[in-house]
């Protein structure tokens, strides 16, 4: 398991290969890339700044990944979240999950993203033509996380 919070870009090839190259039991890797969009809630976005709570972030992400591993077969997983200032089309987050079969890989990957969105202490501030604004939490994200409760 790899959890990283960093300002630098990451290499998707290297991160995904690290999940399967040494383990021939891996039949499926589901991955998710979140990117900065140039528009949000109708306003143009020139840059996005990400702040986090060092220490708690890594702990929260590790707990979410461990929780996914209790629900599905997770052979390995990587979560990388960037902080600092990013521009449209730049990757913000990578979640990649390796499993024997695709159903587990997809479910665990989406579960981790849904809880990352609602539980991991990151905050986004957008620079728009009207000035800077903190991004509001979305109710749809709470709903997405809530659907995993059984």
């Amino acid at each position, binding site marked *: 398991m790899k959890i990283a919070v960093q300002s630098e870009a990451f290499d998707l090839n290297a991160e995904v290969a690290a999940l399967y190259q040494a383990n021939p039991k891996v039949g499926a890797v589901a991955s998710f890339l*979140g990117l900065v969009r140039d528009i949000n809630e109708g306003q143009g976005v020139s840059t996005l700044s*990400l*702040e*986090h*709570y060092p*220490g*708690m972030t890594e*702990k*929260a992400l590790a707990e979410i990944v461990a929780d996914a591993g209790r629900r599905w077969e997770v052979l390995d997983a990587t979560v990388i*979240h960037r902080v600092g200032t990013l521009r449209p089309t730049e990757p*913000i*987050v990578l979640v990649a999950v390796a499993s024997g079969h695709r159903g587990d890989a997809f479910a665990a990957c989406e579960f981790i*993203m849904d809880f*990352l*969105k*609602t*539980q*991991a*202490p*990151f*905050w*986004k*501030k957008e620079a728009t033509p009207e000035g800077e604004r*903190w*991004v*509001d*939490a*979305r109710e749809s994200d709470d709903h997405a996380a809530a659907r995993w409760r059984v």
Partner: protein
Amino acid sequence: MKVRLLYFARLREVFATGQETPELPESVATLADLLDWLRQRGGVWAEELAAGRAYRAAINQDLIEQDALLHENDEVAIFPPVTGG
């Protein structure tokens, strides 16, 4: 009791501070008490931490509910709902 208080994101900006280490009065035993104590500062403190405002709290880096007990040297963080990913 002394605790370490951390503020993040919009609350850090509005409170104009990212952390403080106050000596709390004996009457403060829970997170709810701490929030009351902070609201008594008035101004942005009363406004931002008012009932019905959306914020979250963590004690020692775990998200917690308001009836959680506080202990000496706890790290208590107060912040807006998270928006990562």
